[in-house]
């Protein structure tokens, strides 16, 4: 999987692309932990753009949970958006859609974390 990060208007966005399987989960977790730490230092919100994330397994899901907890502990507003149907299904079935803020698009996610587009 590929990750690219951009920061603007006090919002850090990680664009996740490809497959988040067992093999990719370790790298994803490292990157996400760094992003939570830098967002906390800079007072930024953290968004994950899942629009090009094609696949997620329980190993990948686990990273979202770890990141959401870390963000909460560090007072970093955190949301994910633009889930593809397969990824959305996994979030729904696992109940994660109830404990992590999942928004349909970027505008909704920005509003959720209290930022303006």
């Amino acid at each position, binding site marked *: 999987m590929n990750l690219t990060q951009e920061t603007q208007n006090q919002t850090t966005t990680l664009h996740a692309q490809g497959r988040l399987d067992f093999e990719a989960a370790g790298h994803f977790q490292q990157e996400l932990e760094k992003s939570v730490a830098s967002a906390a230092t800079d007072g930024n919100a953290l968004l994950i753009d899942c629009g090009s994330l094609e*696949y997620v397994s*329980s190993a990948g899901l686990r990273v979202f949970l770890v990141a959401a*907890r870390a963000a909460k502990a560090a007072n970093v507003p955190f949301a994910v958006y633009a889930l593809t149907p397969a990824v959305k299904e996994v979030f729904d079935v696992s109940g994660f859609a109830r*404990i992590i803020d999942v928004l349909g698009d970027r505008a909704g996610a920005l509003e959720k974390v209290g930022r303006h587009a």
Partner: protein
Amino acid sequence: MTVARTTVGASASSLAPLQSFLSDVWTAEHLPESDRFPFELALEEVFMNVVMHGSEGRTDVWTDVTLEHAADSVQMTIRDNGNPFDPLTLAPPDIGAAMQDRPVGGLGVHLIRTLMDEVTYRLEDGCNVLVMRKRLRID
């Protein structure tokens, strides 16, 4: 009915070749893309359980995957000679629990049971045999 089969050693490095196998069968059988995801997911969840829990202290564990394409369904059978374990005995996770109370594991089997139409387990000749079936969506 078409049948395809592959066998790999139970190590994490075999996950990518297994997913390629699934993907190749899907293409060769002209199966709908929209039906592939539950099988990819189940394959990873079951196989990684064998790698991480079924092969503890052993290097002789293999996993054998069979895909059968019938008229309106696909059946995937995953057989391994790892430590005997019936994943269907696992209690479903509490998906209503708050974030801080959620265990970070235990979701894989729940996902499989929810996304597949039928999941059965049997212990056969000392091997774990998990059979999963899902009807294809009619477009």
